[in-house]
């Protein structure tokens, strides 16, 4: 996917002023949050389940090489081929090689965020093959000239039904529909044709199961089930961190994944695919490939933000983030928006490319509280901020300001003097209203609000006075 993370501030501003988007965001706001809150009550021990989930994922990360090898062995034993890709380009190349080897013409794809990283659809099209996204949200984006997804589980969350209706009418050449039911029916008919004619099924992976060499896929639409049942070749493209040791542990994670994502106790389809089709089987892939992608994951593993690899991509941190809710997913400028995106994007594409992302958070802590695998997202965002300061990636005004403040703080006498002058100045600025309308250097902040002016004395002065009178 094209990187636009460096324009975060400009893009966020545009999105904040986009009335239609703001209207759509408001409409969807809180829906996922409310459903999740209800669904987690069904678990007698939600916090205990989170702790268990954290341990399951952490165990894998701490022994990732071992579990990868066990997975590879078991998948291979069932006739699947395990391929490895260091970069997004290499992952795409594998897919094209597989298509060439088996002379495949049309890929039907169920949702995969990893394939967004490598812009796989474009690579397939450039090679002269056809690719069809089958998740309804992804399909809507694909036919809208590959609009980027704005949410990791509800990619077309930002679109209204009117927009979808206009898009379908234009692309399918049909009369515009008004109801959501009819729109879905139209997409169903178009996609059914593709399901029956696709010869390459591409999926991501919710989990890879080490003990059996399987992939576990979770959908409501059943599109992953179709993509992995009908075509003669199935390619799974996913990150190396997606491994879970056993089916039982995957069950624990699933309880949290679907509840945290959409507030469901389970999705309508959960598929576990293991190896190629057996003798006498009518449906199922004759060839199965796993493409295990690094592109930055080993960098995360080696870094201070390793814990971010526990992520099971539920999207809860996005849904609960006040920043995400107000600017939508596109502002973030790459594949993964919201708090988890702000933690992993700098590691995947470079800290200097994504300077604004770790700062696009109020550190309110909501993301860390809801994360089903207990990733301390606010703490990891802070680690990025520290790294930015160390690597001199912050703007000079901020750096100078921090240096000045550090120097002052180390000289208490001068600090006292400076703050005494400061509060008095601010009191004057506040005038008789006692409110400051415009602050130098932080105009962006004071554009939208007034700062109540200090009443004239510093805390240290007041404290000293109090002690004297006591």
């Amino acid at each position, binding site marked *: 996917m094209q990187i636009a993370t460096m324009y975060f501030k400009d893009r966020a501003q545009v999105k904040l002023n986009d009335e239609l988007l703001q209207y759509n965001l408001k409409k969807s706001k809180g829906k996922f949050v409310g459903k999740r809150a209800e669904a987690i009550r069904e678990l007698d021990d939600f916090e205990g389940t989170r702790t268990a989930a954290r341990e399951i994922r952490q165990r894998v990360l701490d022994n990732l090489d071992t579990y990868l090898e066990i997975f590879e062995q078991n998948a291979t034993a069932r006739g699947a081929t395990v391929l490895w890709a260091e970069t997004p380009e290499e992952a795409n190349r594998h897919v094209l090689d597989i298509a060439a080897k088996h002379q495949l013409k049309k890929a039907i794809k169920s949702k995969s965020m990893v394939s967004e990283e490598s812009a796989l659809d474009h690579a397939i099209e450039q090679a002269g093959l056809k690719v069809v996204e089958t998740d*309804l949200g992804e399909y809507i984006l694909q036919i809208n000239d590959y609009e980027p997804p704005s949410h990791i589980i509800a990619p077309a969350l930002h679109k209204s039904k009117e927009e979808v209706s206009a898009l379908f009418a234009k692309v399918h050449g049909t009369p515009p529909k008004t109801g959501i039911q009819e729109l879905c029916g139209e997409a169903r008919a178009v996609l059914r044709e593709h399901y029956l004619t696709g010869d390459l099924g591409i999926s991501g992976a919710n989990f890879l199961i080490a003990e059996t060499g399987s992939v576990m896929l979770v959908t409501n639409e059943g599109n992953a089930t179709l993509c992995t049942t009908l075509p003669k070749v199935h390619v799974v493209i996913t990150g190396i961190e997606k491994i879970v040791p056993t089916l039982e542990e995957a069950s624990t994670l699933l309880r949290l994944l679907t509840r945290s994502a959409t507030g469901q106790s389970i999705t309508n389809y959960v598929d576990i695919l293991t190896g190629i089709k057996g003798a006498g089987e009518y449906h199922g892939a004759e060839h199965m490939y796993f493409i295990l992608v690094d592109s930055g994951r080993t960098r995360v593993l*080696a870094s201070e933000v390793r814990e971010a690899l526990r992520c099971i991509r539920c999207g809860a941190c996005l849904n609960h983030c006040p920043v995400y809710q107000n600017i939508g997913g596109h502002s973030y400028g790459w594949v993964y928006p919201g708090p988890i995106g702000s933690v992993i994007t700098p590691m995947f594409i470079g800290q200097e490319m994504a300077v604004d992302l770790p700062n696009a958070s109020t550190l309110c802590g909501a993301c860390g509280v809801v994360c089903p695998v207990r990733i301390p997202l606010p703490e990891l965002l802070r680690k990025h901020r520290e790294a930015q300061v160390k690597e001199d990636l912050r703007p000079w005004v901020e750096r100078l300001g921090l240096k000045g403040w550090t120097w002052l703080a180390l000289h208490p006498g001068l600090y006292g003097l400076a703050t005494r002058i400061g509060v008095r100045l601010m009191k004057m600025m506040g005038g008789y209203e006692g409110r400051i309308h415009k602050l130098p250097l932080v105009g962006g902040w004071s554009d939208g609000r007034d700062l109540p002016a200090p009443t004239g004395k510093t805390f240290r002065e007041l404290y000293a006075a109090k002690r004297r009178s006591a």
Partner: protein
Amino acid sequence: MSAPARPPERGAKQSPERAQPANRARDNILGRVRQALGKTGPDPTAREAALAHIATHPIGPRPALPADLRQRFLENAAKLESSVDQLARREEIPRAVARYLTGIGVPPRASGWPEFADLPWGEAGVEVAIRPTQGQDPVGLTSVFCAIAETGTVVVLAGPEAPTGTLLLPDTHIAVVDGSRIVASMEDAFVLIRKERGSLPRAVNMVSGPSRTGDIEQTIVLGAHGPFRVHLLIVG
């Protein structure tokens, strides 16, 4: 780190296996993983520990379920919009299918799994073609391996006598559930698969109600790509 090898020429017809000579990518990735974890090479002790961990099949916290699993299954299946009919004996299946299809106004033409070939379909006025389907049949008839009370889910295992398309392509899926095979949770289903089958079949498809989507304005619509209706016949 070694210099990355040259990518193969564009358009060169290479098999995926040959496209990565000597598994360079694999070695590099595993090398970087080990480096990140502070290891120098393969770690036989860690491998033993991982295999031992897998062998224990540890079970995490599960919500408590009532002793009456059937009742819980029925409640949850209804929540997920599966419809349910309970039958005393297997012979009643054709009539129950006929009744259901008449009720919803769907032509009584199904493709079914071979295990249903012996039932008296003609008497009930239902046409059942014992063959896989490509979607031309309005109804698909399958059995299930077991059912899960915690979520109202049915677990379908693929095989030569159990083509997956039957549960996916027709607009209506009718699944026959053995009433004595309702387990508490997904974990129990896996234990049962291991016990009875030894290993996983190519596909384990867990179905919890009809296919649905919420991708347009988070409004739930049934029949996204798969069946619009899932009807469960619980026998026994």
